[in-house]
């Protein structure tokens, strides 16, 4: 009885491991590498000299001349690609409100003239810690600061943001968003600044 059970169990485990654990992922890898090489390799954005980032992964922005992304709860540094994750702070945890208070104060200190309420995505940590996007309102909220540092008109930035808004898919799925890295790369290209001020430690 034992052998009659173990022989099929073992041989099927080996067979199905080869099929689903090696043949299947290797087949998908081969097809994906040929058919969608950019997407399958991390959607890298490269300029002439180096890979600047991934179109799908957010980066830590703290210089006042750039648009800032979501707070990231990864450790030890924000946007750590080796340790994705959220804060996991519960809604009642005082540490959550303390963190939000500090983030709000940092945003307000960087642009005292901006009196409007801060869009919620700018003060809450994302789920992955690598969120590449912010809401259009969160981008617009930062126009005053970026315009002043770059000495350009806010209207130019409003127009730039409009170009980067990704609407809901089919008008239904997800939320309208702006990819912060793409926006900042475009910003640096169109409105370069000489001698950006030293970034603040966050």
């Amino acid at each position: 009885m034992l052998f009659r059970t173990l022989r099929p169990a073992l041989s099927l485990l080996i067979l199905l491991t080869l099929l689903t654990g090696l043949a299947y992922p290797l087949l998908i890898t081969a097809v994906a590498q040929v058919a969608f090489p950019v997407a399958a390799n991390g959607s890298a954005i490269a300029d002439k000299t180096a890979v600047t980032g991934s179109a799908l992964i957010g980066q830590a922005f703290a210089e006042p001349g750039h648009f800032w992304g979501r707070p990231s709860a990864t450790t030890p540094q924000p946007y750590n690609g080796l340790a994705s994750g959220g804060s996991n702070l519960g809604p009642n945890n005082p540490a959550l409100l303390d963190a939000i208070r500090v983030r709000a104060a940092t945003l307000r200190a960087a642009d005292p003239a901006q009196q409007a309420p801060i869009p919620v995505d700018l003060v809450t940590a994302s789920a992955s810690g690598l969120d590449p996007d912010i809401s259009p309102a969160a981008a617009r909220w930062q126009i005053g600061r970026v315009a002043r540092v770059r000495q350009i008109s806010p209207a130019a930035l409003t127009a730039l943001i409009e170009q980067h808004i990704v609407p809901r898919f089919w008008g239904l799925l997800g939320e309208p968003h702006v990819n912060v890295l793409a926006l900042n790369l475009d910003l640096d290209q169109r409105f370069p600044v000489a001698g950006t001020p030293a970034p603040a430690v966050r």
Partner: protein
Amino acid sequence: MSAHALLLLLVYLLALLVLAVPLAPWLARVFDASAPAQAAHLPAWERRVFRWCGVDPAESFAWWRYALAIVAFNTLGALALYALQRVQGSLPLNPQGLAGVAPDLAFNTAISFVTNTDWQAYAGESTLSNLTQMAGLTVQNFLSAATGLSVMVALIRGFQHSEAAGIGNPWVDLCRITLRILLPLSIVLALVLAACGAVQTLAPNLVVHPVEATRFQAPVLDAAGQPKVDGKGQPVLADQVTHEQTLVLGPVASQEAIKMLGTNGGGFYNANSAHPFENPTPFTDFLQMLAIFLIPAASCLAFGQMVGDARQGRTLLAAMTVVFVVMALWAMHVEEGAHPALAALGVDTQGAGGGLAGNLEGKEVRFGSAESALFATITTAASCGAVNAMHDSFLPLGGLVPLVMMQLGEVIFGGVGSGLYGMLVFAITAVFLSGLMIGRTPEYLGKKITAFEMKMVSLAILVTPILVLVGSAIAVSVEAGTAGIANPGPHGFSEILYAFTSAGNNNGSAFAGLSANTPFYNGMLALVMWFGRFAVIVPVLGLAGALAARRRHATHAGTLPTHGALFVVLLVGTVLLVGLLNYVPALALGPIIEHLQLGGLQ
């Protein structure tokens, strides 16, 4: 509740139906063709494979031998996965040079994936090599799903057959379900995900040079590698700068596809389906949500076809949908609302001027509050456990929804296979209860329900709550349990209750603040997962054996109809009654107290 959320739910349900309806007859064909009576019609290559494996596909197993085969197959699978994790350091396809996994964590992860739970006490990107992810986790994603479906098919055969000694051949069921259902669906989904940006490569990490240097503070380590502490016991921090960002790549899309289709839920990355490389766009998010419910929904309809009465399948599907819709609306409503303390801090949570509304802590902007709450309901209604948002940071009554969905026993769509066999167990209970009330012999699908069947049903229903409640009680009573709590107050209790609920019901999602990678939690939760799976499967197979042996009667005027709106109400009532009676006291100590405290926060 926004109109957008309502529309999203409606379109989701329609899309699910459009996909499940054509899938159902295909499932039914594969299941029926796997019956021992059809063995002569198997293609020649399959018969050769079975001969090589020592399997006679014409042999029908008695229920206890079917159960023995399932448990033996899964035990071997767990041993293989444990061994693979332990020795991954000296095996190929390990571009990050990761060492072997610690024994307690490897034990927990092996049990977790074999039981279709996919609880993650580890962070995938920093713990497991590509070989372990592929030949270990991906394999068990397939095989645990096939196990659930096999047990489900065996139970359906119990209703189909009349005075039969056996309930099918487990080896044929496992093999054909994997190769003819799970593998083709996964290939299609994996390629779509890869086209949309889910990574799929064996190349090592992608190191990028971000636009800005990242300045941060990190703990200073002493000579022994431990963080230094100052006089007050606080860690000493030092300023650091990095000019690089390292992005972990791997065979993600192929694992992602079966992770959703098999209601497994174990992510390649720690952040699971919130990670942009697993779930890059709102469109892939929608596909992932559909993939979770696809096989469970189609299984209901296939069940109706297989027992020769499509109404029976539609009734089960309707009962599942009713509960799901109510819970999804609730979750979306709560999470689209604001954390009450934020307005005083000058934060806009109402979505003014193109902003996002709702509770965004632990959520991704591209998904937003409504879609994240919908995903959370789906992933816990089914025993998937993948997450695209961190449930730990949901508002108290929002986080209550995933908890309750699991506590209903993972029968609202549920895991592949396990959802339907769980729901059939509840259907028999409903028939039995109403039989008692109206004084008729309980019958379901022409089979008399006797004392033996009800004993098996009671076992299958009671095992999980006992594991969950006793496990939680032990964890809150010992220091090793409370040491893992991340959030103070009742939320800490919720984290523990969530962990055991998730393990016992083989879901795998978490209130992830809990530090679960300790010998205590790795060991306890592994046991809860194992018995939450197989201590249910064995009585369900016993039930299948007893039903198959019984003569199938034609229905008559005196039979209580088990289709239509009345039975939907009876069934939903039974599920809610059992689930809520078990868990309301525990819920009151956790999320409900949290909600009452929330208004007082400053």
